[in-house]
């Protein structure tokens, strides 16, 4: 008989807990000459029953958020960048500490770029990040307000910057940095908006509009509220189970106690 005729058995990686349980059974058998059933109970036993108090065997109803640690980091970096932008704006408005304004602007720019990278890294398919930059959302007035609103705001801000003559705005308008600011402003706001409105739904034009949007600063803004918009913070809430009654959380502990007293 060849090896192919043998049944295929799924490969299992040994778990530390289960291996320790086997050793425990062996130790008991050696010392007492017999073994009670407790050693071979699976983790979590004795099982909760399905009931209105535990839900379905205490299995969590809601799925856990599947975000990586890059998301809280994204929040922090993005938040720091936003705060720096506010501080920079106040500096400009007061026109007292241009050096600080410059530092704040650098922080805001670096933070915005770093947070973008962090957000993309978290995606299951990072190469499809462009799909995220949808401006029009059929069912969400809030997202439309953010998408279209921020594009219009960028447009207005660009014109505002060009027409005002204050000294504090000079570093934003002068030389290479001036042109970077202008290009970024146009690319993040007016350009994608025009492309989308005039492009008539063509895939290629939409893609260009999205690329343009990335290079602008559109995206640091709208993740915040959405992240807080989860179904519930706790799997028990939709089932209206009081916290102290959830047997699923208690049982492993009780099992641990049992193990200890048995040993």
């Amino acid at each position: 008989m060849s090896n192919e005729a043998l049944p295929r058995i799924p490969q299992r990686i040994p778990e530390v807990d289960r291996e320790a349980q086997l050793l425990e059974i062996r130790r008991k058998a050696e010392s007492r000459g017999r073994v009670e059933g407790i050693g071979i109970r699976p983790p979590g036993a004795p099982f909760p029953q399905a009931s209105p108090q535990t839900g379905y065997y205490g299995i969590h109803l809601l799925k856990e958020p599947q975000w990586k640690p890059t998301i809280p980091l994204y929040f922090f970096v993005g938040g720091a960048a936003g705060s720096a932008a506010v501080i920079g704006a106040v500096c400009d408005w007061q026109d007292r500490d241009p050096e600080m304004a410059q530092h704040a602007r650098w922080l805001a720019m670096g933070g915005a770029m770093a947070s973008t990278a962090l957000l993309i890294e978290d995606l299951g398919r990072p190469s499809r990040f462009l799909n995220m930059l949808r401006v029009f959302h059929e069912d969400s007035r809030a997202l439309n307000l953010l998408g279209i609103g921020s594009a219009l705001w960028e447009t207005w801000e660009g014109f505002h910057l060009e027409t005002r003559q204050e000294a504090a705005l000079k570093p934003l308008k002068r030389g290479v940095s001036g042109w970077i600011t202008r290009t970024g402003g146009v690319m993040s706001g007016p350009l994608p908006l025009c492309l989308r409105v005039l492009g008539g739904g063509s895939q290629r034009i939409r893609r260009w509009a999205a690329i343009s949007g990335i290079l602008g600063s559109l995206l640091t803004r709208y993740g915040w509220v959405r992240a807080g918009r989860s179904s519930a913070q706790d799997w028990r809430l939709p089932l209206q189970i009081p916290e102290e009654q959830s047997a699923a959380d208690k049982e492993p502990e009780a099992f641990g106690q049992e193990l200890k007293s048995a040993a």
Partner: protein
Amino acid sequence: MSAGVSHSNGKRTTAFLTDSTLCIGCKACEVACKEWNGVEADGFNWSGFSYDNTGAVGHSTWRHVKFVEHTPQPGFGGNAGELQSWGFSSDVCKHCEVAGCLEACPTGSIVRTEFGGVYVQPEICNGCSYCVVACPFGVVQRNPADGRAFKCTFCYDRQKAGLVPACAKACPTESIKFGEIDELRQVAHERIQELRQRGMDDARIYDPQETSVQGLHAFFIVRGDPRQYNLPPKPEVPTVYVKQGYRGVALGSAMLVGAAVLAFLASPKGTRRRAGRSWQ
């Protein structure tokens, strides 16, 4: 309820009625679903929860049969009087009338089909997993190996071809019924009447129309408290929390701006202007 017409676009709005009083726990629906949709295996895990080793619907389980065990109860589950009584119910994506996942999706990958179902387009999904936390029933999930989110498609491809979804077709007891939504609601009401006449006073339809979900396109007939089947009594679409969220953001921003302004106003006079550093 406008459920029958709101998404129809001339096509008929379809629905599932899963009648747990007819389910025999054979899991044919799970197998048929995986077979037709090419969904991967769940792995070999022993849960110990009755005869259910899957636990819940997820990215690799679009139909899932729940095995609800009770203390012995005559006339429930068809067992002998002294044995544990058993109830089965096949769970599935509810295809909510107002769907949290659809509202949360930033890419437009999740759409409402012409049959009223909620469909994740795999060629657009970029795996941001916003839908996962937005689902009040814990259905949609990101596949860690693939990176995208998956859930029941309502057999969109089969429906397009005029076929019945795979699970409904495979169900040997017609516990899973498929049809036009208003007709099925009528069928459900008639079934409840029949069950009540036979003494099953605890039989009920699970179809929360009074919450922000506004009804399901996959409703259930269950006996007893729906919570033991992990069916929440008051599921809410996360959009109901959005006002609260914006209020929090507004408050946070106001505090941030206020603190920044205060910091500037409070700084001592001497440090305000550094000599010779003006851009003027």
